[in-house]
């Protein structure tokens, strides 16, 4: 029966209930464990979330002052232990837990599982250096086992295309976290081995919590990496993250980007190497020809051998023509090199004689091919050949004046 004097407002009721919660000594200080879901970090700094177990859920809030003392970033799926009080938010008529402090739960178990598996596989010899396969120097095709979106694949592809376009890339997209991640990674490794599609593979993902990286600590992944006939580079998380697959892999890269740097050579270094090879060949050949020429000159100057001077002259002309053709082929190659290098390593320009030429300097050669190093090397009315970076000019000296 409704009478005027026992009617409450909604707010009055909610406040009454709140009062009961607040004055209950058990509810005003509790310790609770659960898994975070519906996590929201509001722009005001407050954190809103739900805590759940298999059968239940409770709303939770952590105000900015309390959240500021956290030493980790809460995420959905994370297991936590919290201290706080249960009270009522009278506007919504909802009870919820007000979190004062929060710490990670289950890390101890993960750590123990990690160490146990590591010890077991180590005892079996899965980490032994003798099982590590060498990586191909110039891979034709690189298999990548990671998520098709996100920082890891982007970083890897960027670096591969910058360093060495010669290697093709084949991505096997996998789940890198969650319940089916390990299974999915194993499938990819086995696929590449069955099909022999690639000659090296990178397995990995970007950084995340220990739970996020956990697939790479699973035994089935470790065994698949070990069984792989194709060399495997493991690149999981950041530099500080070590996973079991890192230990089993043929090479551990500290990050996915680093894996891309390790798997291919740098094109610029290779081009430098070719340049160096050309210089070495040039030097070598020129030295040998100079030696032969000196030997000929010795015989020519020796009067007892004058009767064969005709033959010697022929030989000398042959050598001269060789020198010219070698200098030409060397110069052609070098100017081509120079064009490429001026793009790639322009700072080296200053060191190269061709760089000097392209800045407007030139070299003068006498008719016998010797470089003019001083005005005293030439006389007036002498033919000289002036070489520029892009061609040469034949000239006759008119007047010689010494500084």
């Amino acid at each position, binding site marked *: 029966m409704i009478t005027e004097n026992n009617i409450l407002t909604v707010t009055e009721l909610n406040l009454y209930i709140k009062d009961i919660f607040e004055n209950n000594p058990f509810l005003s200080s509790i310790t609770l464990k659960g898994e975070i879901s519906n996590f929201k970090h509001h722009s005001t700094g407050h954190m809103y979330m739900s805590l759940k177990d298999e059968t239940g859920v409770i709303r939770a809030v952590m105000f900015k002052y309390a959240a500021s003392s956290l030493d980790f970033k809460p995420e959905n799926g994370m297991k936590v232990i919290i201290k706080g009080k249960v009270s009522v938010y009278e506007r919504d008529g909802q009870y919820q837990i007000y979190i004062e402090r929060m710490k990670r739960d289950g890390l101890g178990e993960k750590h123990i599982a990690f160490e146990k598996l590591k010890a077991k596989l180590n005892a079996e010899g899965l980490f032994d250096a003798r099982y590590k396969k060498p990586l191909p120097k110039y891979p034709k095709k690189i298999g990548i086992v990671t998520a098709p979106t996100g920082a890891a694949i982007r970083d890897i592809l960027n670096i591969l295309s910058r360093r060495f376009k*010669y290697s093709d*890339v*084949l*991505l*096997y997209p996998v789940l890198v976290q969650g319940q089916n991640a390990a299974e999915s990674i194993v499938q990819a490794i086995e696929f590449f081995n069955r099909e022999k599609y690639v000659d090296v593979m990178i397995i990995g993902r970007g950084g995340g919590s220990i739970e996020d990286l956990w697939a790479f600590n699973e035994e089935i992944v470790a065994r698949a990496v070990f069984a792989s006939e194709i060399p495997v580079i493991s690149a999981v998380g950041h530099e500080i993250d070590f996973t079991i697959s890192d230990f089993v892999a043929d090479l551990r890269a500290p990050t996915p980007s680093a894996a891309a740097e390790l798997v291919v050579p740098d094109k610029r270094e290779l*081009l430098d190497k070719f340049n160096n*090879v050309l210089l070495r060949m040039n030097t070598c050949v020129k030295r040998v020809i100079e030696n032969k020429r000196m030997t000929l000159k010795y015989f020519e100057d020796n009067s007892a051998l004058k009767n064969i001077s005709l033959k010697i002259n022929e030989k000398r002309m042959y050598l001269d023509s060789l020198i010219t053709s070698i200098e030409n082929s060397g110069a052609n*190659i070098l100017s081509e090199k120079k064009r490429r290098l001026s793009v790639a390593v322009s700072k080296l320009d200053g060191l190269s004689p061709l760089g000097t030429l392209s800045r407007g300097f030139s070299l003068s050669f006498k008719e016998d091919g010797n470089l003019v190093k001083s005005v005293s090397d030439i006389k007036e009315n002498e033919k000289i050949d002036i070489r520029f970076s892009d061609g040469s000019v034949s000239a006759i000296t008119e007047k010689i004046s010494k500084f």
Partner: protein
Amino acid sequence: MKGKNQMAENKDAFEKNLKELEEVVNALEGGDVTLDEMLSLFEKGITLTKNCTNQLDKAEQKINILVKGENDEMIEKEFEGLKEQI
């Protein structure tokens, strides 16, 4: 399929060229060759260097992704994901 094989052959050629180039330089620097042998080695070295450089300059990286086909078989397709992300 023919294109694929041809690609693989080209790629083998790069490594083969590099290896030959090393041998040429070693022979030249070893110095134990006649003048004519030396000159043909030199010529070969120049050609090999040019070939290697060309191959590096002209290499086009193919980036593919494996996707499941109708009968669960894996098919190679061009990977477009990176373009979307950038």
